[in-house]
């Protein structure tokens, strides 16, 4: 019996990826194998990729957020912001690790994408941590990946927008529901960082005297205002997240070029070129996922998984547990947006029937999928941070494991204690 087209497709992707072919091209190649073996028109791959990229209004936020981070990087904005975080938490052992987490929380208020966070600000902080070999590159990469996961859990969040679309849930309350779990995870990450820092003797940053604080806050005020402007825009209902991303880039350019006057035209050109390069390498990965997504949809893979795990006759709690396990396993293999758009829609009606609150369910799903970004072997964020830090993937994964463990713990907590998610939205008028 000849192997069926889907097995061939999956096999091709796995083998090519293992041989070191860029993952996006591997997914395109595997999908081409599928189309040829199934006797379908191979131009479907081109069509999926072109129409997918052309129709992805929300994905435009990726290049725009990367560009705003690069532009902040060229000027002194990010340095000022990092200076502020440093004054706040740098004095503790493993200070730059804490700075990494705190800046993620602040930047989470501006960016909706974990990949953009890691590729943008992450690049900077990895540079700071590895300068003069102060922290091992693999640890810097690991904590950057772990803290970037928080980004889309704290609003604004592109994955939550996508969930709101597939589940017909309230985007405003979903955003609010992510706030407490996001902060909880930040605290957990800082706990792990303290522990590791003590064990491995990571450096402490110079203590900032109290009288220097007003100056540091004033220096950091323009970048600190950025989340206020963005979230104000989104919560006021004025702008969509993608528009907010464009405003962020314009704001960064304006402040650097006009207020601080510390960028030249050549610097701006190089920043835009670096953003173009990063956007293209991430875009090709997303494009490859879109093509592969077609294969998965045609093959009805989600249905087969459901049949496999036998989802009948479950209680709400065991259903949530099963969803978490399935999503975590899938998250090791598939890209989050693919899971969100293809597999989650199957769970939504079941969750509804079991009386599970949609805001609670949405936050669980997004937290789970964001953790999937850092689970080996196929965690997109792992590739991004390993790529930036030039550290081998295997050692990044080793340093990541404790962070991964506490994040899965946080996921279990919000799964079994719905109030952790729903308290803030309810306090602000959510009726669910």
């Amino acid at each position, binding site marked *: 019996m000849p192997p069926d087209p889907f097995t061939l497709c999956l096999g091709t992707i796995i083998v090519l*990826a*293992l*041989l*070191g*072919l*860029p*993952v*996006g091209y591997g997914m395109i*190649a595997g999908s*081409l*194998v599928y*189309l*040829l073996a199934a006797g379908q*028109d*191979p*131009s479907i*791959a*081109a*069509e999926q*990729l*072109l129409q997918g*990229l*052309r*129709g*992805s*209004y929300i994905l*435009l936020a990726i*290049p*725009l957020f990367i*560009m705003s981070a690069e532009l902040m990087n060229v000027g002194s904005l990010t340095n000022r912001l990092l200076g502020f975080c440093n004054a706040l938490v740098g004095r503790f052992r493993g200070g730059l690790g804490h700075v990494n987490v705190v800046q993620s929380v602040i930047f989470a208020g501006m960016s909706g994408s974990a990949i953009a966070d890691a590729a943008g600000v992450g690049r900077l902080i990895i540079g700071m941590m590895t300068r003069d070999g102060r922290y091992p590159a693999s640890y810097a990469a690991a904590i950057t990946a772990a803290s970037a996961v928080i980004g889309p859990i704290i609003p604004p969040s592109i994955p939550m927008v996508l969930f709101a679309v597939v589940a017909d849930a309230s985007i405003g309350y979903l955003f609010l529901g992510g706030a407490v779990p996001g902060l909880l995870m930040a605290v957990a990450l800082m706990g792990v960082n303290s522990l590791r820092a003590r064990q491995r003797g990571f450096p402490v940053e110079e203590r900032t005297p109290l009288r220097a604080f007003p100056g540091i806050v004033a220096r950091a005020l323009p970048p600190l205002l950025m989340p206020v402007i963005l979230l104000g825009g989104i919560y006021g209902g004025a*702008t969509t997240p*993608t*528009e907010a991303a*464009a*405003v962020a*880039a*314009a704001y960064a350019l304006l402040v650097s070029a006009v207020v601080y006057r510390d960028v030249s035209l050549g610097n701006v050109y*190089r920043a*835009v*070129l670096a953003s*173009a*390069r*990063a*956007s*293209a*390498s*991430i*875009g*090709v*990965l*997303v*494009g490859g996922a879109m093509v592969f997504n077609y294969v998965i949809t045609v093959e009805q893979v989600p249905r087969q998984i459901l049949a496999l795990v036998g989802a009948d006759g479950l209680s709400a709690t065991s259903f949530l547990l099963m969803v978490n396990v399935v999503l975590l396993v899938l998250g090791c293999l598939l890209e989050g947006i693919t899971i969100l758009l293809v597999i989650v829609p199957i769970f939504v009606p079941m969750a509804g029937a079991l009386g599970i609150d949609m805001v609670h369910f949405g936050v669980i799903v997004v937290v789970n999928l964001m953790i999937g970004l850092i689970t080996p*072997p196929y965690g*997109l964020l792992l590739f*991004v941070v*390993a*790529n930036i830090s030039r550290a*081998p*993937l*295997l050692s990044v994964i080793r340093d990541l494991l404790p962070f991964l463990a506490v994040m899965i713990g946080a996921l279990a907590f919000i799964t079994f204690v719905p109030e952790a998610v729903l308290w803030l939205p309810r306090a602000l008028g959510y009726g669910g």
Partner: protein
Amino acid sequence: MNAGRLASIGGWLRRRAENVAVALLATVFVAFLLQVVFRYLLNLPLGWTLEVSTLAWMWLVLWGAAFIVRPADDISFDILCNVASPRMRRVFDIVSGTALVLLLLVTLPAVVDYVTFMKIERASYIGVRLDVLFSVYVIFVAALVVRFSIRVWRAASGTTHVPAVEASGQTD
């Protein structure tokens, strides 16, 4: 033609390709800003801005992947490659590169058919024919075929680098 001259031509071409990519990203950004300004400040929504920025984004991804993304920027899975001997890595490059190039070449006629067929449609606001807009995919495939053929050839012949790519005027 000597290697140095080839290298300088390669570098010049690469810098022009970078100019195009920067222009595309700038287009995404400016068109989007115009949309925000016109919609919220002037209360005069524009339709073409969104179309221009999504099309420029599509071009940016494929053009960028074709010409400006360097091997080190590619997002790939390096666990096996890091433990493999240089000789094994060359075998990896030959196998994976040949597979990709063959698949792209075999499916290229169907892709060209699809792209030329799209001449029947135009982008709704700016009115440009879709075969023109989608031609970037053919450019992307052709560039990948060339790039990975070179990678296979280098791995097979044992040359580790060719000056044309090294002398590309990278500054960052």
